[in-house]
């Protein structure tokens, strides 16, 4: 069959790229081979637009065991424990089918983690939706949340944190980013690199069906009679099978059977087999008749490009097949020897005893196209005058507006749909600055957070990139953990547009600056481009998943106030930056202006000093000040224990609203007992840190002296039930 230009186009391969294929393999590919190229060379697998810039990210420090390039990143958390983690997007599928899209997103990221020999111990998610008034938002939100829960709850991994944001730029392109964290032994990490010739290549897990067959979607009409029947379908997740796969893999990993292992994610069998073989610089031969299929008469094209979930590819040491098969059949999973490693450095596919594809592996991986896309500098948002009378706004009314907005209200409606406590090691549940999971059987823990920064990044990608890394770092500090490393998911529009590419390049610049300065490297991640519909792109949205270590759980803090009569300190300097703040946005509907600048020196100095105070047990509670500013942060510290606060504004030269709602960075609020206040002040002074003692905790009232005094119950109601009201649910 002749490959027409139309078929090539429909595989998303440009004419330049097609010429390159012919050059690389010395002939025209057949349809199956074209499909394989299209899967491997697309943006998702090849990172052809982003590679150049991803290389600039800092990826190493003394704790990093494995940086980007494997299924997930790995860091050392001492005592022979290693933490394996990664974040990934499932944006497009979730927009089409929110439940299944989000569910399979969670399934995919969990596989990335247990492929490496780690038992998943926590998941987090960052989800972005359009305006709350947009007709699609409600369905998408409830579908995504129940999909995330549906999968994670069934597997039995606690969801320990996340974030949810609403913004019109996501009206037609929602974001669903899922992060998984696993625990492994440092000396028992499994990698995907194949080794050795004539080793068995083994397929395990679910059967292959016609799920989400890439590129074939439209092309199939031309080369198939019963096109309708073979239309690609949305992937449906089967968390039950995944749970079995998890247990079976971990059981097999107890001995030394496995040479290499790779989950079948995007581009299924194609990318997994090619990645394993090309990393090992060897060849691979697969007999497609051995692939377990769900439907009758599946073609090699369908088998190679299917994205059926819950499948893995293994390469085993010789003689280990029998034992492995026993384990997988005990768990009721398919197990099939589908091929072997070879010394040809080619991918060879056999079907019905005929060779149906034969491609040099280099042409699919190392020689895949890499682009140096054109980009232009972002036009950063300038300081234009805000509405003049903003300082006439009633403080208390403004606080209520901010706290009862979709973006700033409590997300309990969401996290209550996620099992947060399974596995019995959830020390800090969603609702704090970071989730904290105890390392099973020990008195140490890891702190986990995901953060993004839509408004700031759109206004200024470099500052926004820096800010989101710093916020993540701050969230980890605030619970008393030492930040170690991050994973990141970069969600952007179409990189072929100079403006979007510019946002991407500049965001990475900001991330790199902050990560480098804070010694907070990137160990894994994912890029999601083309989040764009009808020429309207999403705001640039880097999502940062941060991980920190708490060596001694006795030195952990939470954000809720502990006692009445303690001092309240604002640590870090407040200069009252209101541009891009929630106050401007929610109360005045004013969205212009630059985001707050970040001084990395202060960020680090403030953070490390706060960490020091926590580890000396000199502070009773800590919360970082982020969106909404001091007044919102203070409210969040009051609600959980129903302890109020009475504050007096320091005598400084900024306006009330600026002080209370400003979003200056690198700040924390800390609760300090009378007996410790001198020591704390001394430590802060010794480290040249600016701080203010603004008042004391008191009984169930939130009070700004001479301004307002309000009962916590009244404010909390607004904060807690936004989602219930949105869905018309009784409380």
């Amino acid at each position, binding site marked *: 069959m002749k490959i027409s230009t139309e078929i090539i186009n429909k595989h998303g391969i440009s004419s330049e790229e097609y010429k390159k294929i012919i050059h690389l393999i010395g002939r025209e590919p057949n349809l199956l081979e074209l499909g394989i190229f299209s899967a491997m060379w697309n943006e998702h697998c090849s990172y052809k637009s982003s590679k150049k810039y991803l290389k600039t990210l800092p990826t190493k420090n003394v704790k990093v065991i494995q940086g980007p390039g494997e299924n997930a990143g790995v860091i050392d958390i001492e005592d022979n424990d290693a933490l394996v983690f990664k974040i990934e997007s499932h944006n497009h599928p979730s927009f*089409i*089918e929110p439940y*299944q899209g989000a569910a399979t997103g969670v399934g995919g990221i969990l596989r990335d983690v247990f492929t490496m020999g780690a038992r998943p111990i926590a998941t987090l998610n960052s989800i972005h939706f359009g305006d709350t008034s947009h007709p699609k938002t409600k369905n998408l939100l409830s579908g995504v949340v129940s999909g995330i829960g549906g999968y994670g709850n069934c597997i039995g991994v606690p969801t320990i944190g996340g974030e949810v944001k609403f913004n019109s730029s996501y009206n037609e392109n929602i974001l669903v980013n899922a992060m998984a964290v696993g625990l492994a032994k440092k000396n028992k990490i499994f990698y995907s690199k194949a080794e050795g010739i004539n080793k068995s290549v083994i397929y395990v897990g679910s059967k292959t069906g016609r*799920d989400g067959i890439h590129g074939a979607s439209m092309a199939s009409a031309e080369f198939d009679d019963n096109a309708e029947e073979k239309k690609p379908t*949305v992937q449906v*997740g*089967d968390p039950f*099978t995944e749970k079995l796969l998890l247990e079976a893999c971990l059981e097999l990993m107890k001995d030394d059977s496995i040479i290499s292992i790779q989950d079948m994610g995007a581009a299924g069998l194609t990318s997994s087999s090619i990645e394993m073989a090309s990393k090992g610089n060897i060849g691979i031969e697969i007999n497609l008749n051995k692939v377990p299929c769900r439907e009758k008469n599946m073609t090699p094209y369908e088998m190679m490009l299917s994205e059926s*979930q819950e499948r893995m590819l293994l390469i085993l040491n010789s003689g280990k097949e029998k034992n492995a098969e026993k384990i997988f059949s005990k768990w009721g999973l398919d197990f099939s020897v589908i091929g072997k490693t070879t010394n040809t450095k080619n991918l060879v596919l056999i079907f019905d005893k005929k060779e149906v594809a034969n491609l040099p592996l280099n042409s699919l991986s190392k020689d895949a196209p890499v682009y140096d896309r054109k980009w232009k500098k972002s036009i950063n948002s300038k300081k234009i005058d805000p509405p003049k009378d903003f300082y006439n706004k009633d403080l208390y009314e403004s606080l209520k507006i901010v706290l009862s907005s979709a973006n700033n209200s409590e997300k309990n409606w969401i996290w209550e749909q996620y099992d947060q406590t399974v596995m019995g090691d959830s020390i800090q549940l969603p609702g704090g600055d970071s989730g904290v999971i105890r390392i099973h059987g020990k008195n140490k823990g890891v702190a986990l957070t995901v953060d993004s920064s839509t408004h700031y990044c759109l206004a200024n990608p470099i500052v926004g990139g820096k800010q989101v890394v710093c916020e993540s770092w701050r969230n980890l500090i605030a619970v008393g953990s030492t930040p170690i490393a991050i994973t990141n998911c970069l969600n952007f529009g179409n990189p072929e547009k100079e403006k979007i590419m510019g946002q991407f390049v500049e965001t990475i610049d900001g991330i790199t600056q902050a990560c480098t300065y804070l010694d907070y490297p990137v160990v894994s991640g994912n890029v999601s481009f083309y989040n764009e519909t009808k020429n309207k792109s999403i705001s640039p949205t880097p999502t940062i998943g941060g991980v920190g270590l708490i060596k001694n759980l006795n030195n952990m803090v939470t954000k809720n106030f502990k006692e009445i009569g303690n001092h309240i300190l604002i640590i870090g300097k407040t200069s009252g930056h209101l541009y891009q703040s929630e106050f401007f946005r929610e109360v005045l509907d004013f969205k212009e202006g630059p985001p707050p600048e970040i001084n990395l020196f202060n960020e680090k100095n403030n953070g490390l000093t706060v960490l020091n105070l926590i580890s000396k047990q000199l502070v009773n509670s800590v919360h970082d000040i982020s969106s909404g500013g001091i007044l919102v942060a203070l409210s969040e510290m009051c609600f959980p224990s129903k302890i109020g606060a009475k504050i007096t504004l320091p005598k400084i030269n900024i306006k009330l609203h600026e002080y209370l709602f400003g979003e200056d960075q690198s700040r924390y609020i800390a609760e300090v007992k009378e007996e410790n206040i001198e020591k704390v002040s001394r430590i802060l002074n010794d480290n040249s840190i600016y701080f203010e003692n603004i008042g004391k905790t008191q009984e169930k009232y939130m009070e700004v002296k001479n301004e307002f005094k309000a009962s916590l119950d009244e404010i909390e109601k607004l904060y807690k039930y936004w989602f219930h009201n949105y869905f018309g649910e009784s409380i």
Partner: protein
Amino acid sequence: MKISVTVTLKKDVLDPQGKVVKQTLKNLGYENIEDVRQGKFFEIELNENDQVKAKKIIEEISKKLLTNTVIEDYSINYK
């Protein structure tokens, strides 16, 4: 008027539930079960005597609410 709607998964869409039910039946000794697919069934009581109007309403709600048309099909049964 009583009307029932049956919602089934489209062909080629994975049916994890059906799969487990089939396997369980096999384990229970029912060897000749070739396949099981699980769907949903709705019995709707509608206060509408006009057949045509009723039909329109049921069609609408089947599409809008009862069925996830990305992965499911429906069929309506007027008794």
